[in-house]
């Protein structure tokens, strides 16, 4: 399973109500059986960050398109550190 980080902007997602509505339901972040939006961050400068694992980047691109994101970049992830746990995911 490959992983990517997208950086971009999503109008209205800096409001908690909208952010929740876009992401709370399981089907919104678990797009299909092979595509999961694992994390989404709303940054202080108005940009958004989303992390996805999927069989292909096209599946992530499709989610970003459906959600109305203006994407600056989508980049593969090689390694992840989470609170001291290191994962080689590249």
């Amino acid at each position, binding site marked *: *399973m490959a992983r990517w980080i997208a950086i971009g902007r999503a109008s209205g997602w800096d409001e908690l109500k909208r952010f929740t509505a876009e992401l*709370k*339901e*399981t*089907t919104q*972040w*678990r797009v299909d*059986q092979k595509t*999961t939006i*694992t994390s989404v961050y709303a940054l202080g400068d108005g940009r958004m960050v989303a992390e996805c*694992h999927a069989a292909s980047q096209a599946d992530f691109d499709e989610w970003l398109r459906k959600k109305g994101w203006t994407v600056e970049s989508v980049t593969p992830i090689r390694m*992840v550190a*989470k*609170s001291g*746990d290191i*994962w080689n*995911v590249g």
Partner: protein
Amino acid sequence: MTTAQELKEKKQLYFDDVAVGHEFPPLVIGPLTPTHLFRWSAAIENWHRIHYDQSFAVYHEGLPGVLGQGSWKQSILPRYLKDLCLPDGWPWKVSFQHRAMIVPGDTLTVWATVTKKYEEEGLGFLDLDVGMRHYAETCPGRATVVLPIRNGKAIPYPFVPPKKLVSA
């Protein structure tokens, strides 16, 4: 979720009152949280990290999140059938498949529909289609329950299925 008090006060459902096609009231559970999963892991001493360690589940196993245990699902369907049959009926048998993962955030609807009814040795038998849905059917299966016939004989405890049905 059915409360203990509701079960205590539950009126008996009789074989006579159910027709083929009858849909039983569903049991809705959720949205599930990691606490539900951890509680079950602790209760049955299942320490596989996919059930409580989010980072391990996502970054090592490539899963969408921590996973609901198959054994938990296996406990829910019989419990649902038992609740339908209370106080004097009997959930005889159930079998089902595990077809989809469940994760925190999912809300599950447990359901049963009567597909066949028949009498044997003075007892009422219902064959059922059963399952557990979130946005997909996660556990399709079949079950057979025994309900008392109105003014008929009591279902023996422990229940011993009629030989004719066991050998069929």
